[in-house]
Each structure stands twice: as C-alpha cells, then as structure tokens.
C-alpha cells in the first residue's frame, strides 16, 4: 500500500484509561478510522498454572479462585467439579443447587459490572454510577450468603461451605425483586437514550458465521445469534434441573450485546428464584480424601463471560501434576481483532474502539497464560 505514510499508529495500552487490565491494541488509523489492529495480550503472565503444581488441592482452591476476581465462583466451581470428577463422587444434590444459585448471583453482578463499564466507555458516567449502585444489591446478597463480596470462597471441594438460611433466602428474594425492576428500567432507559443508541447500534458488527468460525463464546456469541451456552449444551451442577432460557439476539452489534446481557440478568434472577423454591434437603458437603486418584479431568462451566475450561491431571498425590485453564476472553480475542478492522462499508472509528473492546467483556489478567519469547 503506497499511501501507508498517511497511517498513524495509536497504541491503546498496555496502560490506558479505557483499559482496566493490560493489553496492547496497536491501531493503525487513517484520520479517525481504524484500518488495522494488532493485539498483544501477554502483559500479565502470573504463572498460576505452574504455581498450582506446588500447592495441595485444598490450597489450590483459593489460588484458582484468584485467577479472576469477578468470575471467582465459576473458577472454583470448575475446579471443584474437576476434583470431584477425579474422585468419581459428585457433590450432594443440595450443594449442586446452591452452586447454581451462587453462580447465577455472580452472573448478575458480573453483567452489571460490565454494563457499567460499557456505559463508562461511551462516556456515560451517570449510567455507570447508577448501574454500579444497583450492583451493590447483588454484592450485599453475596456478602450475606457467602461471607465476602467478591472472592467469596463459597465453593469447596465436595460441596459448598455454607448452607442457605430462611433469612438469607428472604433477603435474596427481596433483592431479586428490586433488581428485576431495575433491569426493566435499564432496558427502557438504554433503548430510549439517543446518544447511547448512536454510539452502540451498528458498532462492532460481527455476523453469526464469523462468530461460529472464530469460535467465540458467551453472551458475545449469543448476541450474534449463536446459541452456545454450556449450561444448556453440557449441563453441570444442577443445570439439568434448573430451567434456563438461552438468550440470543440477532443484532450482532454492541447494542444487542447490552440487551442480551440485561436479559441474561433477568434469566439469572428467575433461575435464583427457581433454586430457592426447589432447594432439596440433605448435606451440603461431602468430605473427600486429600489424595486425588490418578487421572485426567476436563470440566466446563459457563462463566459470566462465556465457556470456561479447566483441565487437571492428577498423579495420585495431593498436588495436581498439571493444571490448565482456558478463559472465555481467550476464545473471543480473534473475534475482537476482526471487529476492530474496517472493511468495506463497515467503518471502525477510534471512538468505537473502547466500547468494542468492552463488548467482549475482556478479562486479560485471567487470560495471559503464555509468555512470548523473542
């Protein structure tokens, strides 16, 4: 391309106000239009998989929880399922339902967090503040339910740590009613606000064919009409019992992603109500031996951001031989790179980059598991 001198490099990251975590998006821009992008995600290699090999399974529970603060329950649930799978002894029924409950509660707070960030990325700080205030409802419930707001340490190997009491259930139902009203409000407010529509409709387009071929996951893929959801495709915990409607949209743009996530919060609210109504009685924890039988296990969980895969190989000792994590953000990065390139009539402005990046709900610190050498 002979006119390459006209292009200008704009690095977004690794430190940038739009990013909460380190990533480098090297944009080639022509005026305000993004022509090309290079994505580098290896800025925060934390060596957690290696660290897991030096810790016992009990200690690893808390290490794995800290892979991602926001999806801590998804990670511990996946870890717990894997270890129980190696033992061949699934968790008790009551624990399974409580796990689903905790997971859906986490999905609510994660999606609300995302909604706030999306509003912030398009410069709508008032909406950001309102959404995060409502997120407090879910966090307060989580605190009463599990003992902590974010890193809840709720799920343990073989079950869950705390039982549901009627007081907490009542508090939860009340909070869910309030949240449901607020979600209806946000749905209305966002689809009415002209400036939000202008900034999100037709932005970050990625069709269903591309989503499928780039194997995107989570609400991001569902907003392009691809109904991938581990909860429905490969039910784990008590998801066979809890009815879940897979929310999809066909707008393929950032606006649809907002709407899909809002609807998923409503679905999660319904799932929590169902769980509270259908809580089986029985123990919540079965003690498992510290030494785990030798073998491999792969567990899949639908984290708020999409499919989360944990793989564990045990050699029969009390420490894993190998632990491998694949986070949903990793699966969505090829789609991100594709969305950020202008092609034909689809134009990406510099102003759209933050919200397109936010629309995959990235979590780069959870994703960076490799080091680029040389």
């Amino acid at each position, binding site marked *: 391309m002979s006119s390459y001198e006209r292009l200008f490099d704009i690095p977004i990251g690794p430190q940038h106000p739009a990013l909460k975590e380190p990533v480098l998006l090297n944009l080639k821009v022509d005026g305000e239009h993004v022509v090309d992008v290079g994505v580098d995600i290896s800025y925060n290699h934390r060596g957690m998989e290696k660290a897991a090999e030096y810790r016992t399974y009990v200690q690893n*529970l808390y290490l794995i929880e800290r892979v991602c603060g926001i999806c801590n329950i998804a990670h511990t649930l996946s870890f717990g399922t894997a270890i129980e799978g190696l033992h061949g002894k699934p968790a008790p029924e009551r624990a399974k339902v409580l796990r689903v409950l905790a997971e859906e509660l986490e999905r609510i707070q994660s999606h609300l967090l995302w909604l706030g960030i999306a509003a912030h990325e398009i410069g709508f700080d008032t909406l950001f503040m309102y959404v995060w205030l409502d997120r407090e409802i879910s966090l307060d419930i989580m*605190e*009463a339910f599990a*003992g902590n707001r974010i890193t809840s340490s709720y799920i343990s190997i073989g079950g869950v740590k705390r039982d549901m009491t009627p007081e907490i259930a009542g508090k939860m139902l009340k909070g869910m009613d309030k949240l449901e009203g607020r979600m209806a409000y946000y749905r*209305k407010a966002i689809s*009415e606000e002209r400036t939000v529509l202008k900034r999100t409709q037709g932005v970050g387009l990625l069709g269903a064919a591309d989503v499928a071929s780039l194997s995107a996951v989570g609400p991001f893929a569902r907003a392009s009409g691809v109904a991938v959801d581990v909860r429905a495709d490969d039910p784990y915990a008590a998801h066979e019992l809890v009815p879940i409607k897979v929310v999809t949209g066909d707008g393929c743009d950032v606006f649809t992603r907002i709407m899909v996530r809002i609807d998923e919060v409503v679905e999660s609210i319904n799932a929590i109500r169902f769980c509270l109504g259908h809580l089986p009685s029985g123990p919540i924890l079965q003690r498992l031996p510290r030494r785990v039988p030798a073998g491999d296990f792969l567990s899949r969980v639908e984290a708020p951001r999409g499919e989360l895969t944990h793989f564990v190989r045990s050699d029969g000792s009390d420490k894993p031989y190998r632990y491998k994590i694949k986070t949903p953000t990793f699966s969505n990065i090829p789609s991100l790179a594709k969305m950020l390139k202008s092609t034909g009539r689809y134009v990406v402005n510099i102003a759209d980059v933050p919200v397109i990046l936010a629309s995959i709900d990235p979590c780069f610190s959870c994703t960076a598991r490799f080091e680029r050498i040389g």
Partner: protein
Amino acid sequence: MSIYREAYRSLFGKKATLGYPYRDREMVHLPDGFRGRMALKREACIGCTICEKDCPSTAITIIVDQKGKRPVFYLDKCMFCGQCQESCPTKAISFTKEFENAALSRGVMEVR
C-alpha cells in the same frame, strides 16, 4: 426520558455514598458470617496443625505454649478465605466482624 427523571430525582434525593472513614461509622453494616479478624478458642484447640497445612497463603505458623501446640495468625498474609475454620476438627477457629485490621506495625497484625 427515564434517565432525565432519575437524574433529577438523584440530584435532590439521598446520596448513596457513606462518609465512612470520618462519619457514618455506625451505618457500616456487616452481615452475620462476615469473615473479619479471626479468633481462636484456645481451650478447644488440640494443636493438630491442620490449619497450618491447609492455609493457602501460609499465614499460620505453629508455636508451642504452656498447653502445647497452637496456631498464630498473621493478618498481613491472611486473605480471609476461611479454610482454617473449615478444616479445624474442633471448630476452635472463628471469624469476627472486625474488619479494620490495617496497622503500621506487624506485631499488631498477629492473632495470638
């Protein structure tokens, strides 16, 4: 239009922020089961050292006092996961609601 109404209401309504460190201290609400500074029931502890082995952040060391082995908790390392409470066979470890544990010296941040 709904965001305008909300904005108007919030401007004259109650604010969400608590003036926590200097005022409104009594409004800080912690639920039961909150994991704050831990407490050890010395008479229940049998000195089995399981808590030390299970602690993910090595915040527990074992010392020997008149009654035998017992744990000491270092709050600067602790991440309040609650595994020691979980692992304790005699339920000697419990968590209080005390959450303002930051201090300028390490000695204060030990639970003996």
